[in-house]
């Protein structure tokens, strides 16, 4: 069985993030969470948690207003 964690992953530039939580709302796998960590601008930032089955669908990047998310997808599919 293929482990779900190998399909894709994202990288969030936390200094760009403004904590609007669009990515958290629309992530179909609920793999993004809001942290209690502040960035230099003073916003609580979103973070990606591995192991929740990210497929690299890029919906988070489509809704991210700050263009803070880069999406990677596996080459096997």
């Amino acid at each position, binding site marked *: 069985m293929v482990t779900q964690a190998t399909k894709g992953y994202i990288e969030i530039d936390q200094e760009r993030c403004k904590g*609007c939580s669009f990515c958290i709302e629309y992530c179909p796998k609920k793999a993004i969470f809001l942290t209690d960590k502040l960035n230099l601008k003073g916003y609580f930032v979103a973070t990606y948690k591995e192991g929740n089955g990210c497929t690299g669908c890029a919906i988070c990047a489509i809704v991210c207003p700050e263009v803070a998310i880069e999406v990677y997808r596996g080459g096997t599919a």
Partner: protein
Amino acid sequence: MKKVYSRPKSLKPAHFHYCPGCGHSIVNRLIAEVIDEMNLGDKIICVAPAGCGMLIYNYFDVDCLESAHGRGAAVATGIKRVRPDNLVVSYQGDGDLAAIGTAESFHAANRGENITIIFVNNGVYGMTGGQMAPTTILDQVTTTTPVGRISEKAGHPVRMCEVLAVLDGTSYLERVAVHKPAAIVATKKALVKAFQHQMNKTGFSMVEILSPCPTNWKMDPLQACKWVEDVMSKQFPIGLVKEVQC
């Protein structure tokens, strides 16, 4: 692993100055993506408005010109007439296009100027602190309508796409939104279509984009998106308003 999504090349590395959850930032990114995909980097000239979108020249790695408040369509007309081979795009908000610049926009559309206007409609004057705009919907509370907009005193919200649709000079008018993933994808398609209409010289094209303004609507970003879906899009129906076949 292969990178499938990253920052568009025509978007400079600068951080956006917009508030959290603002629709402007999504629209800016979509324009940059379209510029990249259609390879318009050395051909496009953007006209910046007065309002929240006024700093777009800090974000786009293409030629941009700042216009006086509301005069985007007039400035774009001038550029297009001296450089007819360039793609001229005026980026405007609702206070800019539908209030201060009504005359310029209306007559540019009536003359059938071959320009594209990207009209970001968030129903308030965003930059100055959320005063009532012509596009504020009835009963919406703003700083200048503290009990909600009342039609007897302040008139009715203006549907710019429908207003311009009666003019013979317009070739493509569509209303879209950026409050959910499917709507964002549709917005990008509308931008591509508007640019194609200008390249085919069919006349005036405009894309009206319903955009959340969480700060001035006094909502959190997700509530603002829901408000666009439940309330704003009832007043401003999303969809194609006019398209002349080229």
